[in-house]
Structures are given as C-alpha cells and as structure tokens.
C-alpha cells in the first residue's frame, strides 16, 4: 500500500550532499540566518529520510508517485511567480521572494521558521525549506480592502520549483487573494512544491481562491498552514483540475476565541489523475467555528483521497465544527477514498462529519437524455451542478465562468 521511495542505490541529485553543497555555494551571498535555516532544514530532512514506517498520513496513497526522485534539478527561474502588481507601501507589502532575497531579505527573517501543516508530507516541507528560491510575501495592514492576484508557474520536465510564501494580515485587514497555478505549456511536466504560511491577525478577513490547472504529467505539492487569531475569518476556496498527481495539505489552527475557518474545495479528475488531499481543522480555543466541504468529481481512472480531521482540544469548549466529503464517480475505474476523522477532547461541542460516494443520479440523467441532450453533455451539466456549491463561494463572475469552462473541457 505504501511503498518506500528511498532506495539507497539511486540516491537522486536533490538528496545528495554534493547537490546541497553546490546549492549553498551558489547562495553564499544570502544572510547568515537564512543559510542556517536551510542547513537545519537539510539536516532534519536527512534525519527523517530513511524512516520507512507505515504512516497513516499516507494511507491509500501511492507515495512513489510523489517522490522527489523523479526530478533532477531545481528550477532557477525567477519568472515562476508573477504578481499583477508589486507594492511597497506602509499599508501593503507584496513582492516575490526572488526579489526580496536580493533586496530586503530581513523582511522574512522573523517568519521563516513558521510551522507547516505537518500532515505527513515532511519531505516536501523540509525540501522546500532547504531549497526555496521563489514564492511571494504579502503583508497587509490597515483596513482598506484589497484584491491581489498571483500566478505560479510549474517548470519543465525534470525540474522542480520550490515556492515558500507568506501571507500576513495585520489586525482588521481585509484581503481577497487569487492564486493561479499553471504550466507554461502542456509539455511543462515538472514539479511544483508550494508552502504557504498564513497568519491572520485579530478581526482580519481573508478570502483566498486557488485554481490549479497545471499540465497533465506534472506534480503538485501544496502545503498550507493557516493561523487564525481572535475573531478573524478565512474563506478558502480551492479548485483542482490539472496535474498528474497532487498532494494537498491544508491546516487551519483556530488559536483564539471567535475565529472562523471555512475551507471549500473541488476536484475534477480524469485519465490517471491522482488527488491526495489531507486537511485538519484544529480547535485550540473556545467559541470558534470551522466548516469544510470537499467535493470530488472523478472520471476515467482518476483517484481521490480525502483525509480530513477535526481536532478539538480540551480548552476548546463551545466549538462548532463541520466536515463534509462528497464523491461523484462517473466511471468504473474511478476510485474515491475517504478518511473523515474526529478527535474530540472537549465535551461542549457540536461536531459532525459526513462522507458519501455515489454515481450520477440516474433519474436526473434520464430526464436530460429524454429531452434529447447527448449523454456527455448531460453528464457535464449534472457535474457542473455538483461543484456549483463550491464555485458559488467565489465572488467574481469572470472567474466563476472561467472555472466552469475549465471543468466543461474535462467532458470533451
């Protein structure tokens, strides 16, 4: 079930001391604290590399498909992150990490050691911390509403890009963040490992929309950790359409009373696509709420894994937490795995989870067919309806139409 991808005979370049030495050499101009951070991450990676115990965090997952041994080189491109505008005012700082490392590395110094989601993908976490050379930094203060767009690009075959991102919202800030993950063209079959630290200050509001439509053949690692402070609110909407295999880890930490975390996502998978999604809603403080809805639409031989966890600490009384996973299977070979979980240590809570897997409603299908609609179109119509619940959370008509079009293409 879980295969150990570390084979001593074929130690790849990325994991070799020479490669790391070479990388450090090239980055010798960086400040000392960053060099130290990279070297600690490298040491931790090496320490944990040969652990081959079975891990519940990789249950059902063909781990070898996510192995970094499939890549020979790190992408050095500074164009892998594009911003619609950069900004350097007192209210809003937005820049690429590539730029910041050259111009103002001290800005990220205090946040570099922030934790990740820690839901199993330790290798990509430590590798990203060791080798990151791009990403973006966003810090917003004041209460002016902002909408920001960021484009990430996956490199060509054999290459992997490591992005480390920071989203820091000061108290009462309100931001809509739209992130696109794409490949340059359909032959860009490399890998992208993306690690984002979100820190949401008191009363701040973040709406984050993620659209991943990378080339078939590419690999996507996405780790994100949300730290929510008092009365803050996050609505996270994620659309996964592309890539050959995606490992997604999303964790929301509700650290102080009144925080609200909502995570909505859908997958539209076909061919041999694999989507391995792990989430955790961790309630550490009382009077918080969280909601999660994950929908998977699978055709061909596509496979999805949804592993969600609601964790409620003993202190987190008056918690309200929901988690729902819905899978729609359109073919014989499609496979959906659900691992919805609860770990509740407080008694005054309301926590539920639900998971369902089923096929298209045959009556709905028959209704459309009897009105002369082709089977393919009928399927795509019902499927669009299925994910509409997620798309409807996006407050941008153009974006919504784009996403619908992308999903429709999966039915051609």
């Amino acid at each position, binding site marked *: 079930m879980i295969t150990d991808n570390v084979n001593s005979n074929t130690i790849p370049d990325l994991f070799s001391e020479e490669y790391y030495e070479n990388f450090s050499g090239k980055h010798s101009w960086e400040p000392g604290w960053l060099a130290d951070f990279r070297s600690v991450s490298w040491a931790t990676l090496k320490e944990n590399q040969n652990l081959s*115990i*079975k*891990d*519940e965090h990789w*249950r*059902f997952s063909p781990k070898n498909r996510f192995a970094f041994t499939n890549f020979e080189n790190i992408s050095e491109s500074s164009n892998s992150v594009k911003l619609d505008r950069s900004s350097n005012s007192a209210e809003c700082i937005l820049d690429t990490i590539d730029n910041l490392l050259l111009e103002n590395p001290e800005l990220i110094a205090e946040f570099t050691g922030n934790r990740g989601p820690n839901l199993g993908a330790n290798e990509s976490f430590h590798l990203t911390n060791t080798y990151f050379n791009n990403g973006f930094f966003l810090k917003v203060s004041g209460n002016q509403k902002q909408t920001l767009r960021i484009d990430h690009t996956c490199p060509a075959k054999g290459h992997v890009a490591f992005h480390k991102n920071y989203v820091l919202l000061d108290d009462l800030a309100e931001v809509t963040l739209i992130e696109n993950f794409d490949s340059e063209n359909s032959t860009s079959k490399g890998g992208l490992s993306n690690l984002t630290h979100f820190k949401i200050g008191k009363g701040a509001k973040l709406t984050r929309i993620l659209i991943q439509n990378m080339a078939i053949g590419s690999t996507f690692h996405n780790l994100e950790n949300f730290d929510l402070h008092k009365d803050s609110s996050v609505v996270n909407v994620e659309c996964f359409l592309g890539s050959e295999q995606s490992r997604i880890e999303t964790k929301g930490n509700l650290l102080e009373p009144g925080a609200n975390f909502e995570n909505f996502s859908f997958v539209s998978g076909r061919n041999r696509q694999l989507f391995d999604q792990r989430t955790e809603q961790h309630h550490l403080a009382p009077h918080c709420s969280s909601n999660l809805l994950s929908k998977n639409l699978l055709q061909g031989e596509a496979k999805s894994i949804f592993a969600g966890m609601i964790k409620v600490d*003993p202190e987190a*009384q008056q918690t309200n937490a929901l988690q729902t996973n819905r*899978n729609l*299977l*359109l*073919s*014989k*070979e*499609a*496979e*959906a*795995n*659900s*691992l*919805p*979980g*609860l*770990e*509740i*240590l*407080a*008694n*005054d*809570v*309301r*926590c*539920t*989870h*639900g*998971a*369902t*897997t*089923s*096929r*298209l409603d045959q009556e709905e299908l028959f209704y459309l067919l009897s009105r002369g609609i082709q089977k393919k179109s009928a399927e795509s119509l019902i499927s669009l309806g299925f994910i509409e619940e997620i798309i409807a959370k996006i407050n941008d008509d153009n974006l919504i139409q784009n996403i619908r079009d992308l999903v429709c293409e999966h039915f051609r």
Partner: protein
Amino acid sequence: MIKTNPIEIDREKGNFHYNTDYEFDAGVGLSEDVVRYISDVKSEDDWVKEFRLKALKTFEKKKLPTHWATKDLENIDFDIIRYYLSKGQMPSRTWEEVPDDVKKTFERLGIPEQERKFLAGVEAQFDSEAAYSRMKDDLTEKGVIFVGSTEGLKEYPEIFKKWFGKVIPTSDNKFSALNSAVFSGGSFIYVPPGVKLEQPLQAYFRINAENFGQFERTLIIADEGAEITYMEGCTAPKFETSTLHSAVVELVALKGAKIQYVTVQNWSNNVFNLVTKRAMAHEESEVRWIDCNIGSRLTMKYPGVILRGRKARGEVLSIALANDGQHQDTGAKMVHTADETTSNVIAKSVSIGEGRSTYRGLVQMPGHLKHCKNNTECDALLINSDSQTDTYPAITVQGEDHSVQHEASVSKVSAEQIFYMQQRGLSEADAMSMCVNGFVNDLIREFPMEYSVELKRLIDLEMEGSVG
C-alpha cells in the same frame, strides 16, 4: 452545572474471585513448549499441533500495530501471562455435576435457574475450558452440533476443518496469531441446512486467575437456509495486574443462512480485550453482529463481514461505554466482494469521566461489482469535560454503480434536557442517566430481552456518580 471531577466507581461489582485448584497449568510465559503442552493435554491431532506451532512463529514475527493503535498495547507483558489453566477436560453435562465453587461463580454471573429452562444450551467457559455445557436434546436430534473447540476439531473434523482459520487467517494480526497458537475453549457450532433455532445459544466467558490470558476460539457454521442466534457474555474479577483476553470468532453463513451474534462485554477494568471477529456471508445470507462493550481497560474489536455472495447482507450494531481509565476502540469492517451486497453499521458511544471511545471503520467496494450499498452512522455522546472521542473511518469506493454514506456526530447532553427533567422533580443524575439510556435506546431494543434489561442496569451503574 455538571460536575467535572474524576469519578469514583464501585469496582467491587465485578470482583468475584474464588480460589480454585487447577489440574492442568501451562505455567507462565509463551514458548514452543507451552504450545506443545496445551496441544498434548488436549491430545490433539498432528495438524492442529502444526497449526499452533506455525501460528506461534507468525506471532513472534508480527509487530504490535502501534503505528495506528494506542501505545497502551506496549504495556502487555507476554512473558508473565499464563496461557493455559484448566480443572479438567470434559465439560460436565448436567448442572448437578458442576462443582459447587464454580456454580457459585455462575450464580453471581446471573445465569438464573429460571432463565436456564428457556435457554437452548449454555456453554460457560471458566478460564481455558468450558466447565458446563448443556443443550436441549431436540437440538441434538435436529443435528445441531454445539461443542468446545477441542471436541469440535477432534470429533467433527469433516465439518469444522474446512472453515477453521479460513475466515480469519492466522497472520491477520498479531493477536489472531497468538490466539491460533494457544487457543482453548470457545464454541464450535454447526447448524444443518434449513434448521432454524428459535432459542438463542449462549456462552459465558470468565477469567478467574490472575495474569491469565483467555484465548477462546469460536467457529459457527450455518448451513444453507439455517438460522441461529448466539450470545456471549464476558466477565472477570478485579486483579492487581492486567489480564489479556484475545479471542478469534469466525462465522460462516452459507447460502440463505442467518447468523446473529450478540456480545455483552463487561470485563473488569484491567483486562486487555483484543478480539478478532469476522464473518463470511455467502449468497443471500445475512450476518448481524450486535456488540456491547462496557468493561475492560482497552477493547480493540472491529467485527467484520466479508460479503462474498450475491445479495449478502452484513450489519454491525455497536454500543460502547467508556468510563475513567477505559478505552473502547471499536468499529466495523465491511468488505464487499460480490454484486448487490448491502451493509449497515450503527455505532453509538458514550464517554464518561476520562473515558475514551474510538470508532474505526472500513468499507471497501471494488469497481467490478454492481449495486453495492453501505450506510454507516456513528454518534458519540460526551458526558464530562475530560471525556474523549475519536472517529476514524476509511472508505474506498471504485466504480460508478455503488452508493456509500457515512455520517458521524459528536455532542453532549444538552443542558435544556437536563433542566427540563429536573424541573419535573428528577435528580440531575437520574436525568443524565435517562438521557444516556435514551441515546442508546434504539440500539438496545435490538438486543434480546434479558440482555436489554441487563444492559440498562449496567448503564445506570456506570453512570452512578458521574454527575451531581
């Protein structure tokens, strides 16, 4: 409003221990010699001895499943456990023949005279061997076989050998391997085609010796169109050191057969109860596991059904009550391997004080099958602020022709409900007890009459002192 102090529970309620002299004692610890000793005492056939010795090797090789299960398993010291104790070999056939001191235990266990008249057969296991067993003559006339594991393998190999160890292979897990190496006692039952048993068959299991491990082995075969209900109850007195109970229960329901297996487990709070239970359901058959876990320090039990015949149906109904120092890790496994199979799981757990209850589920439906359905519901109730509950289901579905739904919820007894009842003159404790009974009531109704009454009493007993 609700006190959150740790609760003092009267542990004496399970404390009935009698001094007993044992005729056969395999000593302390596990080795090849112990396994040979057990096999020799039972004068078993060579194939059984080989089976045991092979299982011992498997047991030694297997690791504890602590990568997903609780670390508490590491506290089991396999070297200080007694693996076989027995007063004698043949079960007594009439109540009069049962020694007085053993009778005394059974009286306290509550196999009342009155009830006995109605029970089709009672097999009571005292430490390793069945001490008393009786079955109505008309059942024997119908061809029903109800014997212990030793007798079953010796006298009826043509019936039992075929399925023995086939539903649960020795290597299924570390504890099934341990059981396969040292098993003794348990029930082997065969119900011939078309025979429908109106009265349930019963067995009681009891651990009386300190540091003793009980490893009973049960195999029930219901031939085509047969119907059987089997009930087991478990108790153990309180000892200073922990005790291990590790059973293997295999059920085989052939075409159109129905098996209902009822367990009420009330081990004392230092028993590790690690049980492997699985059924194989053939065409159009039905298997129901009804499971109630109240006692033990750690219970790990996931009754499963392999639905391997068309239109087979599997069901697990489970109630777990976890009090201070207890961990009820229970659940269900439904493996669909044939078309049009259906399964249903309803699990309810109550955590009291610092108790912890866990639900672990598994549902599998491969893509080449048609029209499979599963429904799973698990509800947890938390009484005190230190109570804990976890839910870990795993669902794998392939193909566009199945439907699966899983739902779980966690809640506490609402303050409004308690207030309402207090207003009407009930004490807070009574009100709480009533709420808990109401929570599990729809499942308790599924139990046979005498068990459901006993269960309600047990729940009241466990709830005592938890509030107010």
